[in-house]
């Protein structure tokens, strides 16, 4: 995927229904013409669909196993389609394979209060009180190539975020599941930069 960080934010805002006017028109035309952008929109929408299924099931009082079944059934029926995420530039053992399955698992961990030990992370004891938001904001790290660095001021501004923020180059944790969350808008120096939350599960994988 070769989308700029700025473009990814636009696509995210589009999927969240936050765009209006020129920005909406511009992003819609981008989605119509750019395969990477449309794939990203599909991935984000997929996450939203999964979260909505979980929310609906929770509202109906279904238990975590039933919720997981519903999500998997939806996937089987292709109600939601999961597209592969872009791979990272090197040693992408984990980062490059941050898949929608991680997103589903993370959303599930955040939304469902489950007392049974689950692989992944310690769960808050009263998760139901946590506000419900899509757990992954940026599913893939934009790959910048030297050819994208030019004299175009907009491109240069989009690249500026690289000089701040946090970026994961490689992760290796054979025994513990690791999820990487990019959190845009929380880096101190640059509004285009992302900070990162690395979530390491306590339970050992077999």
């Amino acid at each position, binding site marked *: 995927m070769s989308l700029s960080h700025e473009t990814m934010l636009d696509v995210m805002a589009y999927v969240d229904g936050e765009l209006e006017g020129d920005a909406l028109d511009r992003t819609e035309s981008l989605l119509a013409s750019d395969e990477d952008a449309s794939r990203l929109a599909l991935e984000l929408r997929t996450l939203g669909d999964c979260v909505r299924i979980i929310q609906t099931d929770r509202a109906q009082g279904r238990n975590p196993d039933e919720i997981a079944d519903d999500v998997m059934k939806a996937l089987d029926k292709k109600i939601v389609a999961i597209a592969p995420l872009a791979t990272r530039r090197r040693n992408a053992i984990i980062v490059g394979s941050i898949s929608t399955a991680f997103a589903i698992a993370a959303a599930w961990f955040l939304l469902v209060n489950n007392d049974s030990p689950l692989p992944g992370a310690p769960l808050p004891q009263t998760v139901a009180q*946590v506000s419900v938001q899509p757990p992954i904001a940026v599913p893939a790290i934009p790959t910048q190539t030297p050819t994208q660095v030019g004299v175009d001021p907009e491109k240069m501004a989009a690249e500026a975020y690289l000089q701040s923020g946090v970026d994961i180059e*490689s992760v290796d*944790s054979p025994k513990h599941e690791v999820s990487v969350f990019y959190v845009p808008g929380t880096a101190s120096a640059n509004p285009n930069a992302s900070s990162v939350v690395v979530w390491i599960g306590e339970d050992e994988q077999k």
Partner: protein
Amino acid sequence: MSAGDSVLKRLFKRRKFLQATALMAMVVAGGWLAFPKTANADADPQADIIELQGTTTPGAGSIDPRVANVAQLKKPPLSAYNTYKLLNRATFPVKKGVPSSYTLKNGRILQLTFEDMSKDNRYRVLTTISEPNGKDFLSRLEVLHGANELLAVAGQWLDPKHHDKGALVLGITIHP
């Protein structure tokens, strides 16, 4: 050549020397002022570590005022906990190629190794976490840190035997 010519020539040479010296001083001073000091590849950066206890409590919860400016705590996934308490804060140098160790509140050992500066002027730091018995918990996490930007590491129990004590959330910041 007369004596007067020789004196004039020496004075001229001395003036040239003074002019050249002044020019070099201006160039050095200009360069020192013009270039940012954040990218001193020779100096060892400092690591700031904060250890937070994350729990979910009834109601709105609370965030320790000492970390109230950490925006990440209020956004997913860290907003899964609505209460954060600062347990410890430490600052230590991270030397190039030499692991710096720090014992976490849950007994595990955090190691940070400054590898080099990236092309985009960020700190490439290798992070590992091991069990007290030496086994790997996190074998390798290679991160590009923008100066003063926070990397959060979550998912660990504060006390693996007492889950009611909540989660241990680390904040790692690298700065010049």
